[in-house]
């Protein structure tokens, strides 16, 4: 894994954990609906999610949240 890929994975993990912690559920099907939800959040949580969404396709993010939720249980 290149340095960049490892960094991308960390950013993904951070964003997914932030979403799982804030909402405790799988994100909506559409990215637009998710972005709308962010208005409510503390800035660091919101920014962690936005950074992850930039670095990865939406479905990858949703999968990562699923994994984070399983771990949280």
């Amino acid at each position, binding site marked *: 894994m290149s340095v960049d890929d490892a960094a*991308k994975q960390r950013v993904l993990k951070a964003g997914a*954990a932030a979403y799982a912690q804030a909402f405790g559920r799988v994100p909506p099907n559409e990215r637009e609906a998710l972005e*709308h939800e962010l208005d409510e959040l503390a*800035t660091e949580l*919101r920014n962690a999610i*936005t950074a992850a969404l*930039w670095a990865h*396709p939406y479905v990858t993010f949703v999968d990562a949240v699923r994994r*984070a939720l399983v771990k949280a249980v």
Partner: protein
Amino acid sequence: MKVDTRALQQVYAQFPSLKVNTDKGALEAAATKVLGASGARELMASLQQNDVYLAARSEAISQSPDVQQQQPKRAVVSGLSAGGMLAAAVLAKAGYQVDAVELRDGYTRNIQFSTRQAMIDELASIEPALAEKFLDVAAHIVRGSHSTLNGEKKFTERAAPKAGDPMGVPQSGEEMLNEAPITLVECKMFERVVFDWLKQQPNVTLHTNHQIVMSQPDELGRYSVSMTPRKGGTSVSLGTPDLVVVAEGGGSAATRKSLGIESMATSPASRMVAGTIERPSGGRVASHYVDQKKADGGTERILAMALGSAKADKTWAIVEVPTDELFDPGPNLDPTSKEYRDAQQSLIEKHFRSEAALVIEGDISEAKLEGPFEGSRPTLFTLQQKMSNKATAGANVLTLGDFVGTGHFIVGGGVATATVSHIERLKDLVFDLELGLDKAASLAKYGQGAIADTLAWGRRGVYEFYPEVKDRNVVSEAYVKAVTEWVSGKNKDPLAALEKLLVPHGLSLPPIGTPKAA
């Protein structure tokens, strides 16, 4: 020639929307209905001079009692930023009973808007007191606007704002955006001015902390509306209003879905960090561009912009983030921990501070930072132009502002498109309905006008996403063609169509299968 203000009062009693509409053509059409052809001719002849007309108009308006109709028309407005609030104001003055619904419970946005004379004129046309209060909270861009591209500087002075002229309101987005911005105003200050005024209107009921839910349309195509508290609770029916105005901004996926209105990206995406710096600017707009190398060897243009109202002790800035920047604090922290997120936030703020310093042209290393909302921190957001395929739904719904679509913030067109251009279209619609014109045709006319206004905003800033195409007009024309064809169903993806049109002009597309941005 003496003006018969009683005749004018009679016209306003039957066409109350003319109290917020200074169009003489509309007045003549209404006067012909109320006073007959010769009465209308006589009235219009007496009102030829604009100053005489405006004086007679305010006298007639102040003397014509608000008509208490037995069964007033009903309207629901959803989303009470400036666009929704002015829609509520227009409808209330036109005699509608208005329920105005807003998700938030207060006005806290730190965004600073650059606005044109058109905004002041628009407010004056609705209520002179609103224009005066706006001038109290807005400030002249005293120190003009500064722009730097790779070290090359340009400076433009900005004319001072004048008192509102209700006859000066531009009639289309194109015309409005031809004016240069001259004032800066903090979003929350502007919103509070309009909200406080709306609170005093007897036929407006404000519901904050609520959101609307649309029914399926009935057999006549009319949507019914109910309202639920934001945090859950019992919903209340608002019936089937004559008009529903949706002004919920760009992100309102749920309402869009229930109305069957599609929205698509019309530009690539870029990331920005937005926030404020506790440093007064003296009233200045500044932008800073620099061309930077990317990891893949290409070049990208990074934009930073600062707006500082002379009436605020802080400056609002928006700075672009290079494509390759991930904001990862490194392998030493657990990505799921708060420490990681705090370190990530620090990186974001470091980038924000250093880019903002370039536009502010000063040392801001110690200055206090805040985010787009009171109490928040500098925030990452995705900037991407969007368009809706229509601006009306069924037999009673119209949409305005960012819900219709968005453009680049560099144009400073968002708030003005919502509050001037779309509001002018709404005035026309309400007048057409008073005149007894076909409602479906009147709504269709509104929809076409509103889409054209938003397109005018979008086409002006879209070149920002394509610095490799040297001729801005080429990008602008391609944008209008690609989006118009999508709206009329002639292509399925306006962004793909736009980029195809730009390839012969120097745009290099990524290989198929490689997303340009996530």
